[in-house]
């Protein structure tokens, strides 16, 4: 009896770790009706592509649609980000397509288990949002701090693992999904306008704030707060020196001891519950969590802040072992991915897709206006699963694509002093 209960506890713990992972997102079944537009090669029905990656973009619908349009089977495996990094590096033959994030590229590409893509084979290469190629959203933009996608987007040659400073013919990864993160607030409970990252330190919110306990991202939110509060200025928030880490953690510990934080969350559902129950009124959040709070009828705003956003992005990379017809299929898949249907699907979830023109063609004018142009919704906005997301008349928090992605202050990153940072972060949690 005793053993049993104990065992349950552990099993749960393990599941929690793989949360969002949920194992396989099954591939589509019936391939009987392939009446879809026959623009894609259909001679590859026996090909199976195994995609492994973080759960963010592993949607069942995409696998089903790929099967219908392209004919081959796509098996998606979702893991947490650390497990993905490990798998890509240590089990290069266990996947064909890596669905990874840009900060991981910096870590895993040098391990030589991925192959660079030939941009000439990428149909919509010229239409990819320039954040991922030149790094400049608009010609006058400044490249943000951290692991900006453009800095790890290209390698110098086909076999090279040295990241190129400017675009080359060899692309490390096709961008698929990205977004800009900020603080979420409860407008009904904060009782004052929130405009800056440092507002989370307001003594009024003592014991009512939270930041996320994922060291590599948490430290950057902390850095945004420190910089906003004038505690210090960073040369690069995405690659801090030991001294900068020390000072940031010292500040966090002091703030924690003063009782400013209510909790530190680690999983999506925790952040939703903290906000929905009113335990916290301002905290780091991810955009689907804000949507989840709102779907309970509780007001929640993904507040744009003066200092800008912390952005993240993911993409698809090809495994080194791919060749021949499998490699062709992988290119087909990538070209299909950017041809619009998937883009529209992702945009409708509140993420952004890499090729905007094709996505636009697959969305209604109202949807495009709401998600991408910051216009008030004319009709109710539905999710791809048919759930009400926003009522007519609503304007997206933060406004248009250019307002949001143009105000990115830093990208999720992996620091050179990673190991040291984690030790210090543990110290903060234990303090």
């Amino acid at each position, binding site marked *: *009896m*005793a053993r049993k*209960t*104990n065992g*349950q*506890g552990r099993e*749960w*713990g393990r599941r*929690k*770790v793989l949360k969002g992972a949920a194992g396989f997102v099954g591939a589509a079944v019936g391939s009987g009706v392939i009446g879809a537009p026959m623009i894609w090669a259909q001679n590859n029905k026996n090909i199976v592509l195994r995609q492994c990656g973080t759960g963010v973009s592993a949607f069942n619908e995409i696998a089903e649609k790929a099967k219908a349009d392209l004919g081959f089977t796509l098996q998606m495996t979702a893991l*947490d980000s*650390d497990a993905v*990094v*490990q798998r890509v*590096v*240590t089990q290069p033959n266990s996947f064909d397509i890596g669905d990874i994030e840009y900060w991981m590229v910096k*870590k*895993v590409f040098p*391990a030589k288990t991925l192959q660079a893509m030939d941009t000439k084979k990428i149909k919509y290469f010229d239409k990819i949002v320039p954040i991922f190629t030149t790094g400049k959203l608009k010609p006058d933009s400044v490249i943000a701090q951290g692991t900006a996608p453009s800095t790890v987007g290209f390698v110098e040659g086909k076999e090279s693992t040295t990241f190129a400073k400017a675009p080359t013919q060899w692309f490390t990864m096709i961008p698929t999904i990205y977004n800009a993160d900020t603080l979420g607030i409860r407008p009904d409970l904060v009782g004052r306008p929130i405009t800056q990252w440092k507002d989370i330190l307001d003594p009024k919110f003592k*014991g009512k704030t*939270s930041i996320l*306990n994922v*060291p590599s991202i948490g430290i950057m939110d902390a850095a945004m707060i420190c910089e906003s509060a004038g505690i210090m200025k960073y040369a690069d928030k995405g690659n801090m020196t030991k001294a900068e880490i020390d000072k940031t953690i010292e500040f966090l510990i002091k703030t*924690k001891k003063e009782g400013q*934080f*209510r*909790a*530190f*969350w*680690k999983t999506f559902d925790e952040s939703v*519950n*903290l906000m929905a*129950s*009113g*335990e916290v009124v301002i905290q780091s959040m991810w955009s689907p969590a804000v949507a989840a709070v709102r779907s309970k009828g509780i007001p929640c705003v993904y507040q744009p802040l003066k200092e800008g956003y912390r952005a993240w992005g993911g993409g698809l990379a090809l495994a080194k072992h791919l060749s021949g017809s499998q490699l062709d299929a992988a290119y087909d898949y990538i070209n299909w991915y950017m041809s619009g249907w998937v883009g529209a699907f992702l945009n409708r979830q509140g993420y952004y897709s890499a090729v905007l023109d094709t996505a636009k063609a697959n969305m209604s004018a109202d949807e495009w206006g709401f998600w991408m142009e910051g216009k008030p919704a004319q009709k109710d906005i539905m999710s791809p699963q048919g759930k009400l997301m926003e009522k007519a008349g609503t304007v997206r928090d933060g406004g248009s694509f250019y307002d949001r992605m143009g105000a990115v202050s830093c990208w999720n990153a*992996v620091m050179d002093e*990673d*190991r040291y940072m*984690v*030790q210090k*972060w*543990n*110290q903060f*949690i*234990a*303090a």
Partner: protein
Amino acid sequence: MRRVDAWVTYLQVAPLSLVFLLFLVVPIATIVVVSFFDYSTTQIIPAFLLQNYEELLLSPVTWQTYLQTLEFTVITWALTLAIGFTIAYYLAFYVRSATWQTVLFLVCTIPFWTSNIIRMISWIPFLGRNGLMNTALLKMGLIHEPLEFLLFSDFSVVLAYVHLYTLFMVVPIFNSMMRIERSLLEAARDAGASGWQTLWNVILPLCKPGIAIGSIFVVTIVMGDFVTVRLMSGGQTASVGLMMMNAMSLLQYPAAAANAVVLLLLVLLTVGVMMRLVDIRKEL
């Protein structure tokens, strides 16, 4: 003939030995071996290094965290012992009818068949700032501000532990109590012992094996726990289990393994001391 006997004995022992070898000895040996390995951001490199242990044992964070874990263990142990003993005593000596004993025992047990995690999480809406407890106290006018210490604090962690693990004390202690010869209690009374004296000098010593077994359960579970601490403290408090979790999520398996070995030694030491104090085998 004797030879055949010996073979039969070996055969009989073999299944259990194999199970132990495969599922206990091999995994623990692996952990010990890995704890000496080196690692980088993405790889585990076979080596023989003491660095993992050095980093672990020389860091003040480790000591702080172990102290915190021990503190939780001691408090939880004391509370579950006091509550568990009282409940077992009531069941064993106050409730006379065997039927009622069974019924009440089941009442204690059945909630423990539900998921551990559900029982723990249920506390969160109950203790929260706008939870049932605070709302009730506010409405009754007993407090004017919600009590913040109820949730995401050391208090809530200990509360969850006590709630989750008291049964592990109740069952073995109750079992020991049921084995006590009733005539011993009568003899104590005849000899002029008061109720407290009987409890202290007769019942308590005879319950020692039960207490020891219960204590081993509670202590080992609490020392290895990470879920309760993380959820009930809102991630604000560390525990040894959480430290390992953090290390593992960053692929620092050797560091986590070293920590696991240290924790294992500490738990073995604690259990060893308990076994020293009470010879469970003899008393059973």
